[in-house]
């Protein structure tokens, strides 16, 4: 009985930790695409990096690079969580 109870608690903790990470990563996802690529693009365009205006770069390049990194981070985080909860 006690074993099942601690296991189900574990599952809940696992789910909560998962949701926290998903929330954090989606916040970054939102900031780089809708933030840097759409809402603040004109302000960011005042900054230049090489031949790029920064807002233009985020809209056409940067956001995509960040998306790839976000999934990579999530894959690694979940592998860590899986290992931890298997004990």
């Amino acid at each position, binding site marked *: 009985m006690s074993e099942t109870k601690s296991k189900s608690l574990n*599952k809940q903790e*696992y*789910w909560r930790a*998962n949701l926290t990470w*998903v929330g954090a*990563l*989606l916040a970054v*996802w939102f900031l780089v*695409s*809708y933030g840097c*690529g*759409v*809402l603040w*693009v004109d302000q960011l*365009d005042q900054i230049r*990096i*090489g*031949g*790029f*205006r920064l807002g*233009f*770069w985020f*809209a*056409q*390049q940067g*956001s*995509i*690079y960040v*998306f*790839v990194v*976000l*999934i*990579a981070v*999530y*894959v690694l985080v*979940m*592998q860590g*969580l*899986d290992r931890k*909860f*298997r004990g």
Partner: protein
Amino acid sequence: MDPVQVWTLGIVIVTFALYIGIAIWSRAASTGEFFVAGKGVPAVANGMATAADWMSAASFISMAGIISFAGRDGAKYLMGWTGGYVLLALLLAPYLRKHGKFTVPDFVGDRYYSGVARVTAVVCALFVSFTYVCGQMQGVGLVFARFLEIDVDKGVMIGMVIVFFYAVMGGMKGITYTQVAQYCVLIFAFMVPAIFISLQLTGSPIPQVGMGSQLVGSDVYLLDKLDQLSTDLGFRAYTEGTHSKLNLFCIVAALMLGTAGLPHVIVRFYTVKSMKAARISAFWALLFIAILYTTAPAVSVFARYNLLETVQDMPHAEAPSWFTNWEKTGLITWQDVNGDGKIQYTGDDAEAKGLPANELNVNRDIMVLANPEIAQLPNWVIGLVAAGGLAAALSTAAGLLLVISTSVAHDLVKTTFLPDLSDKKELLCARIAAAGAVVVAGYFGMNPPDYVAAVVAFAFGLAASSFFPVIIMGIFTKRMNREGAVAGMICGTLFTALYILYFVKIAPEKNNAEHWWFGISPDGIGTLGMLINFLVAAVVCAFTPKPPAEISDLVDNIRAPQMDGEELEISDH
């Protein structure tokens, strides 16, 4: 035949032989193999297959050209068609894989304990896939027509025969491994000209870097030069945008949510072994897609710069051969308005700036196809681009046809009407459905409905407003019930469909910012449809009974981590 056609024909025949060879080697023997490739596809291979499945004729042929004319606003496609993979990896793919059936309607039907919910989902899946597949067959026809001077209709027919071969015989297993080959062909075909042109213009072999570099032999940045050329000719500066923020926001969101809700993309994540593999293959998929999607805006810049530099004030008699070749197809048109025998290409502000009126019309779709010719690259590169365009269109068409055949054979015939159907008969039924779908898609490829341009908006808007909310609520809330889900799906989809239909078909003259609700264009309305879906579902759910207890267990099981050595279900038999 000229040398370009010989190269094109050679490369196309070699790649087609490759696809057929793979199809024979990997043909499906059971429903599990036919629908989900036996669920044993390695994560990297699935990533590649997903990338080919996803990148259609539109991504390969049209996107860079559209961005070339849209400038910064083109970012909506770049972000919209990649950002959805973050949602897939974080919110959908691992859980749907854990549930372990064949299709999205399977999940919807089980989670909402309802045949009505399942059939609604099937209808949405069929509609989205059919609208999408017509464009692919047409893309095949166009490539054949331009590069090999074959009739568009005959080109469509050749495409049908090839797809018929490996989709009907090989099922998901055959499609998966041909898509891996097709990804390699299409990415090679896209990158080679991009690298060549980047070297020519900026000296950098990496197009993503070249786009932000200085022009060869000067200290002027390419983008600055392009901005200046554009404004000098009365166009808008390339790096500036015109869309309102809210509209842009909604379009990007609709494309992302639609990507995450497209059945032919989701089904790819059913073909891997575990939840972990589903996450990893989403990573590979986006990485492989990002290679093309970060190169495309560079190609747009190069193509636009080359076009403005080459044709301006050139006497028409001296126009290069690519110009006259494309004129023959009607995709470039030139009208000597001021009668000076020279080509004048100017923008909307031409009159205000005292420039001559515009005389040139360039079809956006030809920018990628004409690019190697404009940059005077070798003949084999031009042939390669044709093979790449075909690979992109065929791989997406095959993925869509499979969703159609699965929906008909598995979700409708087997699960809804004839639950006692044997595995063998279900497989036969799936093959017949796939064959039927090829014929229908081919017919629409030859006789495209007049709303083709709106079709993409349709498919994404509907996927965003139907599947995405229903799946999310099914995984992340236990309280959501049958009544809420069905009501939400119907309201969200109907609203989106009617809005698009009204502005595109019934009152196209009103299709502008003045008449749009909140200034949201039909491309972006799926976002509002999704919100309506969520809202209606929440309200209906609050006034109707809780779902039965076993649903809570089902959701718990989907959320739980997969244990070591825990094999996920291969089929539901």
